[in-house]
């Protein structure tokens, strides 16, 4: 073996230029900037306290208000942020980076709330309750997206499915009552899911075009009927709503009770659906098959899993979930349909899905963030903060961009997402 030479004796401590280390450093910088922001931008007049009301006079169990001394709180917040930032700089790692950013943003939000509320008060419980309510259609939209994208069908049509659900809920609900209305909404949502599946699976239409078109179509039909028919026959657009019902005992727990256990059918429904879908997707036979179809349809096919059927079923299921979410707008909220009343919530649901990494619980969490931002903004508008309300309204969207860019830029959709499958 004369012509053979062995190579490379290791030199131990080389400096490696790794992407995650770079990212950790950037995040460190961001966190330190946030610390400075809290320190100088959100400084509270000394002695002022922020009062968060936890119960209303009508609640069964009364607890005192949460009173936070503004100045000290925000000093501590700034210090924590700075600590996290410095830590990132010194020894940030892949796992820690995301966690630190998450904690950092949470601290920032708290510091901001304390700053905005200093010297005033508002109902924290009310805000959390509203958070939950506002998150419902987004979470259900996101969940619909998860179900269909897990089998690799991109679902831009969530918006249209929500709108169709809202419309059907109002129309059928007015004629035959809330429950029938709700089931009709689910069916119609499922119908549009099936239509999407037919267009993309059977007719091989581009998935995004199919989604956009369904949105256009639903918007057209519902607006048309609403202005052509509902304006004349008002009784067709006057549905009963599902009211909140308090779950005994649990509903009386301060803060948590009103938020989770004193809500209407749709809130409970969303939570249950998220739980069921998580179980379904990750712990059942059919869930495994569905995910396989989304990741590697041909592999699934060779094992006797019917790819087309699986796609049909899940996109339809997604449509049904979206139809249920759509019914929230009418049967769960205002009892009547209004043109384009979903107002882009389906697209936000799509964002929640991506934000939530194609996981039902992730989608729900993302939806809660949107809901939180939505309700916080309304509270702040009443508090007369010097920040223009438009900027408060923007905050969740900006935060989403930051998080998507910083946190999950690399999160991966199901491998086959968006690609049609041809058998032969």
């Amino acid at each position, binding site marked *: 073996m004369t012509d053979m030479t062995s190579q490379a004796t290791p030199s131990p401590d080389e400096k490696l230029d790794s992407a995650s280390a770079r990212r950790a450093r950037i995040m460190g910088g961001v966190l330190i900037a946030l610390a400075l922001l809290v320190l100088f931008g959100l400084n509270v007049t000394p002695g002022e306290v922020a009062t968060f009301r936890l119960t209303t006079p009508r609640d069964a169990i009364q607890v005192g208000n949460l009173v936070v001394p503004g100045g000290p709180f925000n000093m501590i917040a700034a210090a924590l942020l700075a600590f996290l930032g410095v830590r990132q700089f010194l020894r940030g790692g892949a796992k820690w980076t995301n966690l630190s950013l998450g904690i950092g943003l949470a601290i920032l939000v708290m510091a901001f709330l304390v700053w905005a509320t200093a010297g005033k008060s508002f109902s924290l419980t009310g805000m959390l309750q509203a958070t939950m309510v506002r998150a419902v259609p987004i979470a259900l939209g996101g969940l619909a997206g998860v179900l269909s994208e897990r089998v690799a069908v991109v679902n831009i049509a969530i918006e249209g499915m929500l709108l169709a659900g809202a419309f059907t809920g109002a129309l059928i609900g007015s004629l035959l009552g809330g429950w029938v209305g709700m089931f009709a909404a689910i069916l119609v949502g499922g119908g549009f899911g099936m239509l999407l599946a037919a267009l993309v699976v059977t007719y091989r*239409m*581009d998935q995004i075009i199919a989604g956009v*078109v369904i949105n256009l179509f639903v918007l057209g039909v519902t607006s048309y009927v609403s202005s*052509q028919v509902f304006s004349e026959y008002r009784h067709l657009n006057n549905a009963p709503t599902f009211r909140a019902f308090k779950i005994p005992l649990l509903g009386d727990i301060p803060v948590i009770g009103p938020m989770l256990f004193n809500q209407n059918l749709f809130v409970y429904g969303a939570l249950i659906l998220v739980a069921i879908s998580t179980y379904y997707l990750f712990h059942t036979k059919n869930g495994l098959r569905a995910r396989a179809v989304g990741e590697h349809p041909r592999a699934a096919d060779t094992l006797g899993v019917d790819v087309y059927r699986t796609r049909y079923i899940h996109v339809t299921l997604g449509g049904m979930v979206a139809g249920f979410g759509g019914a929230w707008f009418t049967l769960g909220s205002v009892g009547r349909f209004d043109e384009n009343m979903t107002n*882009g919530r389906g697209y936000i649901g*799509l*964002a929640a899905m991506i934000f939530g990494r194609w996981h039902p619980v992730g989608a729900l969490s993302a939806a809660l963030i949107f809901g939180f931002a939505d309700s916080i903004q309304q509270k702040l508008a009443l508090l007369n903060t010097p920040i*223009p309300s438009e900027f408060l309204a923007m905050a969740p969207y900006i935060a989403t961009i930051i998080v998507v*860019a910083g946190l999950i830029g690399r999160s991966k959709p199901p491998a086959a997402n968006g690609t049609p499958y041809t058998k032969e």
Partner: protein
Amino acid sequence: MSSGPDLKEVNERMRGLMARTTHGRDDFEDLVIVPLFAVVVALIFGALIMLATAVDLPTIGRSFVALAVGSVGSLSAWSETLTASIPLVLAGLGLGLGFRAGLFNIGAEGQLLMGGLAAVVAGFTLAGLPWIIHLPLTLLIGALVGALYAAIAGFLKATTGAHEVISTIMLNLISYRLLDWLLRQPFIQREGRSDPISKDVPPSAELPRILDFIDVNLRLHAGIFVMLAAVAFVYWMLFRSKIGFAFRASGENPDAANYAGMNAAFIIVLAMGTAGALAGLAGATQVTGVLGRASPGFSAGIGFDAIAVALLGRSHPVGILFAGILFGALEAGGRQMQVSAGVSIDLIGIIQALIIIFIAAPLLVRAIFPWGFRKRTKRVGDA
């Protein structure tokens, strides 16, 4: 090195290779018959929907007449059709260009708003310049701001991989709020008003109406030339220019583009920027040609309709031009339909959607009308 048996034979073979493949019947079916079917079928469906909502037959008849008359039946109808199509085509070109480069930009709406607002601001702050400078400058600033706004999403995608669908949706939502706020700043807000509305664009920055010598109510403005120029420019850019080659390559196969040494980050930012510039230009022509000022939501969903226009036009500049005019015609005709037949203009949305369905899913049209088409042969032969 040609291992050259016979120079003549080699030349012969080269000539053969360079002969263009002629358009076959398949192309003809795809480009002419399918769209025609689509429009006809969509109209029939529209009639069925009207029937289903208890509109009587004479009214349906009148509404179709009104649709035709209102869109192409008179000079003023043409004027309205083209006026409506200008921003649709411009924004659609931007989106189509993005699609070609593999970017699913949903953000035309926001880019259009920001570009339009910038044009308004440029319009009244630069008042006093001669129009020959003022107008182009105003449009340019609108395009530039649209480009910058879009480039945010491009930049984020290029540097962090943030999905452009999310970031453009968010940028749209942000733009509404930003517009509301900006319109209330003293610098922009009209004197004496407390609601969000901007100052007026002075005449020297307005796109002149080109048919007002016939009738003052003809709104068609010089933006139509901007639109045509943009169609030509995008065509050139996509199919003739070097950068367009890179756009298309990264859209079709990003791995191959990367392999070929195309700078993905640069392409993403530039393609987004160009798309944003066109959307911004759409906004700018809208405020300088039609609206004269900016108010909340002045985009009126054009940015979203433009997605449909771009898809319908198959991301091809000429296709987008026709798709935009078709959408403009439906809009103008739809208005007439509501006025003279009392049928809600929302019907138009349905018809638009149906047209796209039938065009985008030729298999579906073929399934519905098997007799209209020759049976498809598979791929073209190989070696």
